[in-house]
């Protein structure tokens, strides 16, 4: 360095005060501020979209959580329900749900008359106001307790989806102009009933606990059973994907010799992540159902398929975070005589935990929301069964899953299903957050800098 340059450099410095930023620093600070701003904006963008999406979901889904129903006193006529008069359940059950419709018609006529409403509609017309599930509901009660026959029992029966929609403001009188499912005249009755009691809108537990219903009675559909389906699937996924994924990553990252073979596996795994999920469905159908002979529509199979689909996500994130653990930690452990296995399990893995948990969170979220592979193994459609009896049934008996249920509902014609689909999404997200909360807390525990 020549004297001249030192001089200038030096004198240049001496004059610069710390309190005043020189041009270059100002420029760099501006870049810094911009950078930070971009970061904030990025987080902001994410959160804003989240809020928009959540707002949309909640706004559209909230109505699903209330439900209108009638309190309907039904005379359980003996001639109609038990012609033999012996109250034998076997005989009583010979009367099909269609046999109950006249009873409901009469009950409705009486109800209307009681409230002093004049109408020209026949009982069968009035029945459009109540869910077509009402007959089944009454029949089930009667079969369970045949002694009720001959008495008058007040049932809380669901209102039909149009009436429910009217109570929620979704359906207006004009809307019904060309609707053959309900007439404005019905609404007059509903107005009177809701004023004088006999019709009430209440929190819809059945939506959260119930099972799917056919297209003709959206008012009865619930997400409960499919939630169990999802739960059992997630159990399978969690119990298999997490340990297998972590084990595979550990092997590949820590133990496997670095050669073409392991490169192949590595590329393979990243490639599996890019395989469209429906292809996993094809695989699941071929392997688990046709080859192994597991039952169709079973959450176990769904869980296995989703496991395969989630594995790459968990493996990729686990490997990335294993890689990020500084080698000096491994050296330290090996240096005190720990075996490689011990070094990995005692030191490296805990440090890689945040990434593993992130992979799990994202993988499970993906698995929980996935429909396409379920399509091929029979979990999408009308899989309204009852609650499984016991754990084994839960894994093996036909069931749907929340996203499949939502997807189905979203396709159905009756607009009431649309509302339920969004309601289902709320439940799904709550389910997801509950499921993730443990992982999130754990992850915060493990997060540290060194």
């Amino acid at each position, binding site marked *: 360095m020549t004297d001249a340059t030192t001089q200038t450099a030096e004198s240049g410095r001496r004059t610069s005060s710390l309190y005043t930023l020189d041009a270059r620093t100002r420029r760099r600070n501006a870049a810094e501020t911009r950078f930070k701003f971009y970061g904030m904006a990025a987080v902001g963008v994410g959160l804003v979209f989240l809020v928009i999406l959540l707002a949309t979901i909640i706004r559209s889904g909230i109505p699903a959580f209330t439900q209108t129903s009638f309190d309907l006193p039904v005379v359980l006529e003996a001639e109609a329900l038990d012609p033999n008069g012996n109250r034998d359940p076997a005989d009583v059950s010979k009367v099909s749900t269609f046999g109950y419709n006249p009873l409901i018609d009469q009950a409705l006529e009486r109800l209307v008359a009681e409230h002093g409403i004049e109408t020209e509609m026949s009982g069968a017309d009035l029945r459009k106001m109540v869910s077509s599930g009402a007959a089944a509901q009454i*029949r089930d009660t009667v079969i369970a307790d045949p002694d009720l026959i001959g008495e008058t029992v007040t049932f809380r029966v669901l209102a039909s989806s149009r009436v429910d929609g009217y109570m929620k403001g979704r359906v207006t009188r004009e809307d019904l102009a*060309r609707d053959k499912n309900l007439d404005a005249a019905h609404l007059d009755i509903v107005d009177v009933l809701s004023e004088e009691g006999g019709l009430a809108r209440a929190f819809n537990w059945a939506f959260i606990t119930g099972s799917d219903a056919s297209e*003709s009675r959206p008012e009865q559909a619930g997400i409960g059973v499919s939630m169990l389906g999802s739960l059992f699937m997630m159990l399978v996924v969690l119990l298999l994907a997490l340990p297998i994924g972590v084990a595979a990553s550990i092997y590949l990252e820590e133990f496997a010799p670095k050669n073409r073979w392991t490169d192949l596996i590595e590329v393979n795994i990243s490639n599996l992540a890019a395989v469209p999920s429906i292809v996993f469905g094809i695989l699941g159908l071929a392997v688990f159902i046709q080859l192994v002979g597991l*039952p169709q*529509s079973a959450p176990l199979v769904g869980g296995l398929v989703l496991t395969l689909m989630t594995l790459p996500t968990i493996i990729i994130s686990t490997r990335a975070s294993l890689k990020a653990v500084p080698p000096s930690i491994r050296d330290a452990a090996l240096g005190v005589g720990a075996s490689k296995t011990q070094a990995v399990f005692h030191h490296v893995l805990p440090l890689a935990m945040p990434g593993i948990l992130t992979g799990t969170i994202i993988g499970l979220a993906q698995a929980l929301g996935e429909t396409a592979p379920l399509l091929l193994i029979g979990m999408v459609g009308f899989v309204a069964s009852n609650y499984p009896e016991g754990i084994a049934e839960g894994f093996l008996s036909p069931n749907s899953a929340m996203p499949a249920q939502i997807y189905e509902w979203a396709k159905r014609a009756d607009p009431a299903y649309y509302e339920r689909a969004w309601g289902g999404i709320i439940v799904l997200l709550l389910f997801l957050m509950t499921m993730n909360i443990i992982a999130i807390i754990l992850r915060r525990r493990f997060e540290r800098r060194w």
Partner: protein
Amino acid sequence: AAARDNVQVAGSSTVLPYASIVAEAFGENFDFPTPVVESGGSSAGLKRFCEGVGENTIDIANASRAIRDSEIEACAANGVTDIIEVRIGYDGIVFASQIDGPEFTAFEPSDWFNALAAELPVDGEIVANPNMTWADANADLPAVEIAAFIPGTKHGTREVFEEKVLLQGCEDTGAMEAFIASGMSEDDAEGACMAVRTDGKSVDIDGDYTETLARIDTNPNGLGVFGLAFYENNTDKLKVATMGGVEPTTETIASGDYPVSRPLFFYIKKAHIGVIPGLKEFAEFFVANEIAGPSGPLANYGLVSDPELADTQAKIANEETMSGAM
């Protein structure tokens, strides 16, 4: 493997609503468990149906079209030889626009052909479709931009639309002859009749009717193709168009006055009857008068009930298999 005790149904998503209504009622009224009805399309349903006989194959395949010969062959190759074909009724296909949109009350198949064909004969020459508004296609129609949302090529509805509307229109307008006259073979001419323009005036919908509805919701001029049942459940948002002057209802379709409809089917694997509990009962229940009859829940929901239902019932009772398969 534990024995399966429920009936397993898969196939067309058009048949799914009806099948699920029946399955639900079946579960309520019988001691058998509620059948599982999967969606996934006629193709996938029949494919699984034809995979063979045995408990890990499905018992019934729903289809929005008749099974094809090649499929019957594939079935037979896998040992599925005895198939009972059941026609459950008809699905009306309707055209509807936004409730606040223009009214279409004068449709003829030819209008659709003129509006949507990729190429048209104009003054003896085959040119790319020049029509921009419906009025261009037919002066009686409103002069609004053509914006048709038609089912994607995966849908069975598309096939019906092509054959019963476009091809019909093509023949009606004489375009068919013009095509042949221009040197095309008959097959090519048919193909040309059914080719849909790709300049954005006609949009394929790969999703379902809810998607079509959503698109029409955001497009005042939009005109979509729906199933009758879907339309009937959404009369508050949709305004139906007539075809040949006839408004689609279950009655007009059943009587054949409204031209665009298609039969819906399901197929039973005969070998499974007697093995899978409740299979035959379910099938019989499906086509019973109180279910599939004109005043049954299926018709209520929008199925056009089959005038020849009694034959179908007898067919199931006798377990009559398809003649083609014998």
